[in-house]
């Protein structure tokens, strides 16, 4: 698998070259959110707002009212937890085109509960006028900005940084409201998002070898949640549906899927693999994925539950974990 580094950092510079109306706001996490190359390339369009997110979000609203497009970058928790009131009144109510890039979703940081965004999708989905997106690989990150910029109102992107796998073909760009169909099948529908898609792919070969037929979709648009391919997948799965997300099961992909299934009258079981309504703590990504049941083995257990059978899949059957040093040199800091 191809691994790329600083994908957003390089992509933002090239994408913004002919867009003088795009500015970047930073809250003291410039290299940590991969906007250092933008800062160096376009210093007149880069504004350091300091470690003061409430002001930054209202400031962004003011800019957006005047035809400037603020691309706000910081860790996700500092967007939606620290400045929620400002997002609601200064950005979301007036439906302004502020683009928020929230880094360090869930288990992707060993920074502990203060740094791990586990309910950002839930919080942001519940805000009227907000579009909510999540990326899962380098292609998503590279091809995200055009569709984001086409949205009339505010957009929250649950973002990835550092070393990223390329899971999806370079010529198949991110599209809002369109899940990527990874495998087709009839027994189960599997909806995965963010880094959980890579994890789910580790189990794919083992499940296929046991004859399990799965319709696997990578879902990157959490709101609006109106993708017909998703509706079709949950409606046609014979044995049930599994969602898999690096997020609390309250308010994210699992909840959106439950709401969709209830609305469609799909009377089949749904297993929501994700964080079960508790906080994370500071530890490595593989450790947290195992501890909180977000890994390929957890997916296999969910499949077994829905199929009422033991598939006999052991750790050895799951593809080798993409080993990633917590203190990898590709990261700006050990957060």
């Amino acid at each position: 698998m191809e691994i790329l580094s600083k994908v957003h950092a390089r992509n933002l510079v090239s994408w913004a070259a002919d867009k003088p109306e795009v500015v970047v706001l930073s809250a003291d996490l410039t290299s940590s959110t991969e906007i250092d190359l933008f800062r160096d390339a376009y210093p007149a369009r880069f504004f350091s707002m300091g470690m003061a997110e409430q002001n930054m979000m209202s400031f962004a609203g003011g800019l957006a009212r005047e035809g400037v497009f603020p691309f706000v970058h910081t860790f996700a928790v500092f967007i939606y937890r620290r400045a929620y009131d400002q997002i609601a009144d200064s950005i979301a109510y007036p439906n302004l085109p502020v683009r928020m890039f929230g880094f360090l979703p869930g288990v992707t940081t060993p920074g502990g509960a203060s740094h791990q965004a586990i309910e950002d999708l839930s919080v942001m989905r519940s805000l009227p006028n907000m579009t909510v997106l999540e990326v899962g690989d380098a292609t998503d990150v590279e091809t995200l900005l055009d569709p984001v910029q086409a949205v009339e109102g505010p957009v929250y992107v649950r973002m990835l940084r550092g070393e990223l796998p390329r899971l999806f073909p370079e010529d198949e760009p991110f599209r809002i409201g369109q899940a990527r169909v990874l495998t087709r099948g009839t027994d189960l529908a599997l909806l995965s998002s963010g880094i959980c898609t890579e994890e789910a792919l580790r189990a794919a070969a083992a499940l296929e070898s046991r004859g399990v037929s799965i319709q696997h979709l990578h879902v990157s648009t959490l709101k609006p949640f109106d993708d017909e391919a998703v509706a079709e997948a949950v409606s046609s799965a014979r044995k049930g549906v599994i969602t898999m997300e690096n997020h609390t099961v309250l308010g994210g992909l699992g909840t959106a899927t439950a709401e969709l299934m209830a609305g469609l009258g799909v009377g089949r079981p749904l297993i929501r693999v994700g964080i079960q309504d508790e906080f994370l703590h500071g530890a490595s990504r593989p450790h947290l994925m195992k501890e909180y049941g977000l890994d390929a083995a957890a997916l296999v257990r969910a499949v077994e539950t829905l199929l009422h059978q033991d598939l006999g899949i052991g750790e050895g059957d799951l593809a080798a974990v993409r080993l990633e040093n917590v203190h990898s040199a590709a990261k700006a800091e050990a957060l």
Partner: protein
Amino acid sequence: MQSAATSTNNWTDDVHRVARGIRRRVLDHTIRNNGGYLSQACSSAETLATLYVRLMNLGPSVAPPVPPAFPGVPKAGRRAYTGAGYNGEHAPERDRLYFSAVHYALPLYATLIETGRMSEDGLRQFNQDGSTVEMIGAEHSPGLELTGGSLGQTLSQAGGIALARRLRGESGRQWVYMSDGEFQSGQTWEAVQALVYHRLDSIVAYVDVNGQQCDGKMTDVMTIEPLQSRLEAFGARVVSVDGHDPEQLAAPAEQAPDGRPTVVLAYTNPCQGMPLMEARRPKLHYVRFKDEAERTAFADMLRGMPR
């Protein structure tokens, strides 16, 4: 309507006339409705009148004299409607007002009427269902263009607008009207430090320092003084004035921009011009008459107030 360009030599007379009108209209409204933000009119009347009569470079109102019905909240396919048109058309050289102390909406509406920007019929819609003339103003209310009701957000939003206007090379200034209670909020200080750091000197904030908030006297709730030295320590240009003296109010705004945002601390009396209000201290945030006798006394006071 008057602006700096068209004011007469006796502009202070105009300010006082408008200020008297603001107090009378808000008092009249409060008597009719048995409730209103009366102390806010007492403290803000001269400041709002000075802003509209003397300081702000605004075009004539381009909004309907009687405000339109609320068109609905902003959402996909429906552009946000704002009440900015009452302050004239947006233009590069024109100033803008960002009204942060939205609980002062009633005095603001009275100011718009007194300066010929809104019909007095508009005030009949105050706090009526389906109207934009809301009790606590929002961006669709006459004279407003931002939603700041949470308090502490408008100065930051104005900073973003100031930055955008600077990027476009516009010369218009940003006037912000705030209440002193907003200086209890951390975001206000974040905003001041950002305005100073980014040298957004087109911002001039007028603060009604009336020492009052919802619970009563600010010194009994959470003190903000010494406000001038705190703001100066943040790097702002700060002037403290008697908030009922038009010449003092106008003087700091007539200084040339020097790279710093300007904050004018208008020290005011929340009972100014309405002696009966003194008996209601320390709870002045919202006036509802205790009984018919008190209401009658205020009505008598209104009849005796000069025009």
